[in-house]
Every structure is written in C-alpha cells, then in structure tokens.
C-alpha cells in the first residue's frame, strides 16, 4: 500500500459534502485503494456544521486526528477556519470563496469575520481559493459546487483525474452527469491556477 493520505471535507449541512466524499470513495475503489470514511448524519445535518473524513490507504479507524489532515476541502470560509486545526503542518486547504452566515448570527447580531479577515487567519497554510458558486453556475447548475470543489482539489490528491471523473459519473444523478463533469473540469482549471501561482 502507498503512503496514507487523509482528506477532510467540511461545510454546511445540505452543501453536498456526503456526495463529494462518496465520489472520493468510488475513485479509490476504481484504483483499488483501501478507503475509510466517517461522516455526519442525523440531527447535525440540518443546516449545521458538517465534516466528512476520508482516509486513503490508511490502516485502522476512519477518524482523522487534529493536526494530521493532508488536505482540507472547505465549502465555506467560516467552516475552513472552524476546522483549520485539523490540517497538518504543510497541508493544503482548498476553500470555496463564500460565507453562509449562520441564521443564529443574524438572530443574535453576532459579528461575522470578513473573507479578508478569514484569509489573514489562515496565514501560513497553502491556500487555494475557488469561486465555486460562479464556476458551478457557469457549468450549468449552482448545485454542482461540491463537484467544482473536488475538481479544484483533485491536483492535490493522490488519485488519478480519470478515476475521479469516472467516479463523478457513477455517483451523481444520471441527468446531471454533463453538468457535473463540466463543473469538475472548471474546478480543475481553478486548481491548476492555484498550483502554478
């Protein structure tokens, strides 16, 4: 087995983190890699903060310990900051450039840090910022943001692009395959821009 690689996907319940982790699991099957995952179900799903752990070629349990994730994919900037302590030294963070303000913050007039303030607090981390919403709309559906994010992160993972695309095709609803492939490719381009910067 090759070196283990740990990926944490974080976001807000309803953003499609589970589908994204299923795509990674499926890509591992295609490459005959051992894969472990752990995710949030039930009560915490309802608009709350959610996390999916994916461990490629790891022996043992499905949980990534804080400070050891190789890659963190955040569908929301606030969640990127909430889970930043999971990232290992030298780890990479791929972040969607958006903040879904928690409803409780509106109700209780809590201050929400600005995107700039969040980026400042992520200093020292290799950061790839992706306008996932805009790219998903370009691809044909705002709902494809999760697949845009996978595309953007794909260059940072030890999985072949071909197997990831095949996995996307197997995991998304049949009617949305074209849109999601376009979303994945637009994400990939954004990721390449990050890596060449």
């Amino acid at each position, binding site marked *: 087995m090759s070196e283990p690689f740990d990926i944490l996907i974080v976001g*807000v*319940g309803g953003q499609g983190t589970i589908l994204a*982790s*299923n795509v990674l*699991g*499926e890509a*591992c*099957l295609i490459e005959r*890699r*051992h*894969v*472990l*995952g*752990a*995710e*949030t*179900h*039930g*009560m*915490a*799903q*309802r*608009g*709350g*903060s959610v996390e999916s752990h994916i461990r490629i070629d*790891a*022996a*043992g*349990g*499905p*949980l*990534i*310990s*804080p*400070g*050891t994730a190789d890659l963190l994919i955040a569908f929301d900037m*606030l*969640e990127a*900051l*909430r*889970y*930043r*302590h*999971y990232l*290992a*030294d030298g780890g990479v963070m791929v972040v969607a450039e958006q903040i879904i*303000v*928690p*409803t*409780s*913050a*509106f*109700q209780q007039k*809590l*201050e*929400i*840090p600005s995107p700039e303030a969040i980026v400042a*607090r992520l200093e020292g981390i290799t950061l790839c910022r992706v306008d996932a919403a805009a790219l998903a709309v370009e691809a044909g559906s705002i709902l494809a943001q999760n697949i845009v994010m996978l595309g953007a992160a794909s260059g940072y993972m030890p999985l072949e692009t071909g197997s990831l695309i095949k996995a996307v095709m197997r995991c998304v609803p049949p009617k949305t395959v074209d849109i999601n492939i376009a979303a994945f490719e637009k994400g990939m381009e954004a990721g390449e821009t990050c890596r060449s910067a």
Partner: protein
Amino acid sequence: MVTRYMLGNEAIAHACLEANIDFASGYPGTPSSEVIDSLRAQNERQFYVEWSVNEKVAFENALAAAWCGLRALVTMKHVGLNVAADPLMTSAYTGVTGGFVVLSADDPYAHSSQNEQDSRRYAHFARIPCLDPSTVQEAHDMLIKAFSLSEEAALPVLFRPTTRISHSKSDVVFDPAGSEHREGVFHRDPKQYVVIPAHTRVLHKKLNEKQPGLAARLVELGFNSCEVRGRTAVIASGIAAAYASEVIPEDISFAKIGAYPIDEEWLAAFVRQHDAVVVIEELDPVVEEVVRQVSGGVRVFGKKNGYAPWEGELNPAAVAGILARAGVLAESGYPAPEPVADLPPRPPILCAGCMHRAAFYAIKKAFPDAVYPSDIGCYTLGLQLGAVDTTICMGASITVASGIAHSGEPRDVVCTIGDSTFLHTGIQGLLNAVYNGANMTVVILDNRITAMTGHQPNPTTGCTACGVESAPVSLDAICRACGVSFVETVDPYDLVGTIECLKAARGKEGVKVVIAKQPCVITARRAGVKRRPFGVDPEACTGCRVCVRYGCPAIEFVEGKAYITDLCSGCGVCAEICPTGAISVEVKQ
C-alpha cells in the same frame, strides 16, 4: 465477491441478506436507521420488513419470528433498547430457534442522543452474547456469524455498532444475497414460551447453564484474539481496537475484544504474561472490569485509575494520549492544535418553512409565560426559539407536562410532541393525564413522517416501510378515545388561526390537544408541492428585525434590511408576522 464503498449500516444490512434473513423490524434512531432503510429499499431478497411504532413493539415482533424459526433482526439506537428492555430480559430465558440479532447502535459523544449509555451492559444484564465490531468490514462479517451464533446458543445476540461504525464508510467485500427461505412455524411449548413462575425458574437455570461454554466459543470463533509481543500489553475493544492498531508499537502485545462474555481463563492467561496492561475502550469499563478481576499482580491502566476517559469518543490521538500517560509511549506523537475559539457557532436548525417553527411561534404568542416540556425529534431544535424547557426521552413531553401540572406550578403547561413520538410512547401519557385530571395543553406537531432520522414512514404517513398503502391513523380519534374533549386540528402556516385556537385551549380546563398539521417541507418538496417564494420590499422594510428573530434560514439581514434568499419554501409565515407588510409573494427580488 463484490467490493463497494459502503456505509457501515448498509454493510450490516447487506450481511443480513447474505445470512438468509426472513424478518426485520425496527424503530428509527440515529445512528441505527439506515439498516432498515437499506433493507426496505433493496430488491436482492424478498422478505418481511417493517418500521414498528416503537422499539418494544419491534423487538417482540422479531422475537416471535425467531420463535417461529426465522432468522430475524430488530434494530434501534441504544436508548431504544431501554424501551425494549422488558422483552429483552426475558427473551434470554425463552431463547430462540431461528437466529435473532438485536442491533442496538451506541452513540459515544452523543452526536445525536440524550445520553452515552453502553449497550454492552444490557448483554451482560440479560446474559446474552454481545458482538462489538471494530471496522465496517468486520461489522459485515460478524453480523453473518451473529445469526449462526444465535442459533447455536439458542439465545438472542446483541450486536452493538457505534456511530463510527454505523456512519463510517469503507471498501467492503461482500457476497450475493442468500436464496434460502424458511417457513415460519410456531411449535406450541408452554414450558418455553409461557413464563409463569414454575416455567421461568427452570428457564433461568437453563440460561445460566448455557454460560460457561459461551465465552470460550467466542474465542474459538475468532471474535476475541491476542498476540504476545512483549512485557506490556494493550487490550482494546470495538472501534477503539482500530484506533489502537494505528498507534501501538510493534513490541507491545495486543488483545482485541470483539465479543462478550469474555473468557476469563483465556484473558487471564494473556494478561499474566505481562507486567502492565492498558485497556482502551469507549464508554463503560466493561473490558477493564474483567481484566482487573483476572489481573493478579499485573498493573492495569484504564478508566478506573484515571488514565482513560469514561465519556465521549476516542480517536487515534486520544488513544496515543492514554498510552503516553500510562508510559507505554514516550509521548503521544500527535500534535495538539487548538481550534479557533472566537467563531460564531453553526448549530443545526429547523429548515426554511418548517412547520415546527410556526407552531412554536404561535405557542409563544398564545402562552407567553408557560412551561414548555418537549420531546425527541426535529422539533427539539425549538430550544433555539425558547419553546423547549425539557427533553428527556421519547414520549416524556406529555408525562413531564402532567407531572409539572400536578406539582402546583402556577404557570400554564404546554407540551409539544411529534406525530411519530406520540405514537411511540405518547399515547399512554395522554391517557394517563386525562384519567388523572391534569390541566395542560398538548400540541401534536403532525408532519406525517419520522423526519429527523431520515423521513421514515409511520402510521400517519399512509404507507408502510416497503411502500404498501396503509390507512393513515387519525390522531384526532386517538385523542378523543383517550378522553380528551378539546381536540382541534390547525394549519400552523395559518398563524392567526393557530394562535386563536391555542388561546381557546388556554381558556379551558383539563387536557386540551391541538394538532398542528402540515407536511414536513422536505417530504412536501419531494412530493412535488410548489409554493411561490416570498420577497421583501426594501422600501417598506423598516429593518425592525421581527422576521429575522423568527429564525428562518431563508431570512438574512443585509445593510439594514431583511432579505429573503432562494431557500424560501413559500410558507408565508414571515409575511404574517411582518408589522409593515413588507413581505409578500408579489415582490420580484
């Protein structure tokens, strides 16, 4: 053999198909629900599957099937086993002929539960075998053996996955579904199935006589195994064994416990080859207690002497921390980064357009100063709206309400309970409250589905687990049959009407029931119900924040004005509460 990336609960369900299951029942409860959900959605094997109205009912149905010789499964979450504890304890006496697996999913860290109880204690209490898998693949493989073990021992087998088994995923290797079916036949045998004192004394002795061979058999079956590698040992159970395997050095001996009762002779032989033993397990010190009994002079590190936590869940870093404190590792080797502290929290919330939010709003308007006992379901999130004062277990809203009402509390008592929870264990509380003359209002939040656990159908829904049409039960008729004379059904989206009805209830003596009825927004959307979304007229909006405080996730506050996002499901309640009439369907955003 096929390999698929599977959820733990899906792997468990598939194992049942491979083991020639013929009967499955359960009551939904996180993290157990997807087992029955997978069984009812599959078409590899035809057999009887039901969602029952509560765990006791589910247990007794499946037990009867096992008495008839079928292989049967009953599923629930750990606290559900409390509800089913009555038949559990005596089913160990009667035993079974068909394999009977009782799946009780534990929830260390209480991700979605009211407590962190340890189901392994129930197996010990009932004197039945308990299986405790450490990985998803093992859960799958163990479950197949659980059926044959149950038949061999003629006992129910408790199968205890935890959240990180049930809701973990992995590449699982499995076989096709089995094709053998059994015909259920009940063989009359009062000495076995009628537990009058004369029979049960004999059955208890028989149960005790089954014990000695059982523990050794679990070692033989490979569920409990050990390897001596040095003078210090780690003994770990369930998923903690997977975490331990990541962190223990090669010169440390390792014993893996996957089944109970633990063979004490086998364990003693292992423990006594060491100078020190560290026990790693989640929740109660079930393994540790046995280790201490057989340890002789060997030093034991665990929960009882403060080396390991009694609560919460473990992970590799936590296990490494325990080993470092016990001196097995020089240091944990894991970083201990601090999470960012000053972030706004993001708790789960009721959906945009959820009927519960509207009902709670109306309750607070009609009963501004009342005590609000509540129950278990999505609506427990009404806590954020200040309308949930107590939650302890399924069905306890009504009973806690009547208890408070009889205690002389001067304020009104208004309790809330969902349709599924009412049918689970709410009816008895209502019957009791009426019988004993309590003064209180019960609001049944009727969205026709068991929503929180993943939208399972129940007797109000109109179909069974497998999609067969069934006559929806009348909650109104049940309440009236319990003796309630004030039973009114309202549409919570009609805020004015709902508040008026609640005020009318407030003016009456005795037990009053208001049924707030509106489909769950998620099931309504799936069923194709479309309502036009609402918008805010920025000219008319004064920025008073009344709608923002309502707490709907579709309402944001941007630059001094309310703004409705595309999450809006068109319930229209915000338009009813807006004091300036700034919200309507007509406004183009």
